[in-house]
């Protein structure tokens, strides 16, 4: 317990100390939430009555992506490059507790993001109406999927390349994930491909929990999401190189 707890606290402290991660994890989602719910840039999808009901679920998905993929991937990538993971290999911490600390850190970060983003969304008039009990499973499955992608990059690429790729994916997934631009506004071919990727699947699943979102929910979204949640960490565990 003690090594795991100390490692988790250390991971959290280092993450929260890092200004860029604060920017990607809190500031950008907050700006997206406020800006796109107040300014009429993107047309409302059919059936939706107010923008915040579309933007809020997308921003929750965006927040999960920033913590689980961007923060975790970049942080772990540099730890690997600088030999931090190699050094830990010669301590009694062990890979199991190391991974458990990483998971705990990501979950705490997502919790903190929700504590900030949900009240702001509610203040902006968000009115979640769906099966709200689905929210936690959706966020957890999303976290697993994005963490798998982040760790796959961290465990196979150089730290700087992981940094560039994670930030690039963050932007592409923001645009293709139905988070800001509803998926039905995209060309059909693009939207069909996007539905098979984790961001749109997560946005759709969150939408099932909150009533509406910019991506279709239902069975397809959940199957895709759970598939990534299982597959991405499995591939990451298989391909991960510690030094």
């Amino acid at each position, binding site marked *: 317990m003690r090594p795991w*707890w100390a490692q988790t606290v250390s991971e959290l402290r280092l993450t929260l100390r890092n200004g860029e991660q604060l920017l990607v994890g809190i500031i950008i989602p907050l700006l997206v939430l406020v800006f796109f719910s107040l300014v009429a840039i993107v047309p409302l999808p059919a059936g939706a009555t107010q923008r915040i009901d579309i933007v809020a679920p997308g921003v929750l998905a965006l927040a999960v992506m920033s913590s689980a993929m961007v923060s975790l991937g970049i942080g772990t990538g540099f730890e690997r490059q600088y030999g931090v993971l190699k050094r830990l290999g010669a*301590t009694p*911490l062990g890979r199991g507790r190391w991974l458990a600390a990483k998971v705990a850190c990501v979950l705490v970060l997502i919790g903190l993001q929700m504590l900030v983003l949900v009240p702001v969304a509610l203040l902006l008039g968000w009115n979640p109406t769906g099966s709200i009990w689905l929210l936690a499973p959706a966020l957890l499955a999303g976290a697993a999927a994005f963490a798998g992608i982040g760790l796959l990059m961290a465990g196979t690429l150089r730290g700087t390349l992981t940094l560039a790729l994670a930030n690039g994916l963050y932007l592409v997934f923001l645009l293709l994930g139905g988070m800001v631009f509803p998926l039905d506004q995209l060309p059909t071919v693009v939207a069909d491909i996007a539905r098979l990727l984790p961001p749109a699947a997560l946005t759709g699943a969150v939408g099932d929990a909150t009533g509406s979102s910019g991506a279709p929910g239902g069975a397809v979204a959940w199957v895709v999401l759970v598939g990534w949640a299982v597959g991405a960490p499995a591939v990451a565990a298989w391909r991960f190189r510690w030094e």
Partner: protein
Amino acid sequence: MVSVPPAPATNGDVLVSVDNLVVRYGDLTAVNGVSFTARRGEILALLGPNGAGKTSTVETLEGYRRPASGTVRVCGLDPIADHTDVVARIGVMLQGGGIHNQMRVAEVLHLFAAYYPDPLDPVALAARVGLDHRMRSSWRSLSGGEQQRLSLALAVIGRPEVVFLDEPTAGVDPAGRVTVRQLISELGNEGVCVVLTTHDLADAEKIADRVVLIDHGEVLADGTIDELTRATRSSFTFTLDSIGSLSTPLDVAEIANAVGAAVTDEGQGRFRVEAAPEPAVVAALTAWLAERNQGLGDLHAGRRSLEDVFLELTGDPEETTS
């Protein structure tokens, strides 16, 4: 390989044993049949030029590399198969540190202390390595020497039985070197088995109880400093008194005939006799000089330095940095 008598087994049990170790990276053979042992309380230096196979050997003992053949044991355990038990009993210092850039000295000491059941007190340890005034500094802001001292502290914080130190004095300023060497000596006195790598002869000469000389992945010599320097004392030098009666150049063949060994003129008035400085040989030399009423300038029959041994065995002075 220089043959030296085996050290008496007075230091207690063997904690590190390497038997005919071979380590390969693809086609490259980094370690080719290395064997040695280290005991409780012993400080063993793996000495050799860069690329000799020192780090590969140590990293195999730490469980990072799998031997292509041969066996390594740490506290009687296999570093890979018994990894969990081994890491609880060893401390390591890697080249390059491996500490998070943004972590502060106090944080990293407390974190590593939490990995072990009965750690040393982080604050006292910081003072022991001279970092108590840097507790709030991040790893990135430490000097090379400070980083090495922190790494050394982390290697010992879990009260290990065996400590592996890879180039512990690399990048450390002269004052820091004294601190690092003193700490390592203290570990030996406390009964810790220390295996360190170095290409610095002074490190080996000042702190090691035992030196294993490695080059091109093979052991060239293994023994105490005393054994290594004595074993190779196969010649001695002398100079002549400048006010003697003999005119230069000296006829070296004539002296060689008198002492019964080859003599070479090394220049600047120094001559080398290719024989151990046994009393009979020295007597023959001085008798020859007495007949000619020639005084001796100096006679150097002392032990050779470790550097001489190192250069003689590795045969490549360009590779060394003493």
